[in-house]
């Protein structure tokens, strides 16, 4: 079954049922990114048990330069 979610601000249609599956589908190394769902942090260990729902707002971030 397909869901429309927002990943890093962009609308995406996905078959992933959980946050963990979504991260995997995007081809990210599990330990290479951190995630938030609808504005709240979701720890790596909780992604498996975090189901996705329609219009969810997902943030997937990685290390970057900073000042």
């Amino acid at each position, binding site marked *: 079954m397909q869901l429309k979610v927002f990943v*890093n*601000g962009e609308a995406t249609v996905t078959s992933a049922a959980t946050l963990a599956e979504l991260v995997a589908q*995007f*081809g*990210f*190394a599990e330990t*290479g*990114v*951190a*995630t*938030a769902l609808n*504005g*709240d*942090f979701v*720890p*790596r260990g909780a992604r498996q048990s975090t189901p996705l729902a329609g219009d969810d707002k997902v*943030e*997937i*971030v*990685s*290390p*970057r*330069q*900073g*000042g």
Partner: protein
Amino acid sequence: MNTALPNPTMPPSLSLYGVSVSSRLLLGTALYPSPKVMAESVKAAGASIVTVSVRRESARANSGMGFFELVRSLNVRVMPNTAGCRTPREAIATAHMARELFGTDWVKLEVIGNDDTLQPDLFGLLEAARALIGDGFKVFPYTTEDLIAAERLRDAGCEVLMPWAAPIGTGRGLANPYALRSLRTYFPDTPLIVDAGIGAPSHAAAAMEMGFDAVLLNTAVARAADPVRMASAFAAAIAAGRTAFEAGLMEMRDTAAPSTPVAGTPFFGLDPS
């Protein structure tokens, strides 16, 4: 060779959240012409702490870990920031994501109140600081010279404060030296790191001469014509300012006073003609 420019190791008198820090120059990792120049600048600066951020990863780029590897190779402590966050909630979630990614509970907490001045929202900053300290973070708040905000942040559990010199990226130096001086006087025992607005080594030296504990900067190095040499220049200036503070600066005078002894001046007392 100028990258050989001084970064004297001084007695590790500076302790941040119980961690003794050898260099009083904290350096940002953004805006450099290349990752290589960034890495060389960090070395030339002799920095032991660098700031980093988290940003949205794209399936295509997948570049985050590459950057992290590079930083890891520098053997410095990383301090993730919450740059660009406009609300406590954004800053809190961002800090948590950064802690997981970088494996550190240190965070440079930014809650930006205005997109033009990028200045701290002191209200949101305090709220976010309280929450993050509750979550076990070691918070380094990017704040202003406001004494009362500083007091509340410290009372909330911030063991270090990071007042600005001027708005981020302006390079204006100490916009309000009088207020910074009184902040230093009022918090003799709290580590105070001047963060943002520093444009030249003389600005950084002036802050250190006032007794500030360290300086955090990025643009002034990264945007220099030669970032690596500029990094070494800042390192030397910050060491100089700190040493001067410890060595006791002379008092400024209104009227002149001869350096060369007056006694025994030739022709003294003779008609000058």
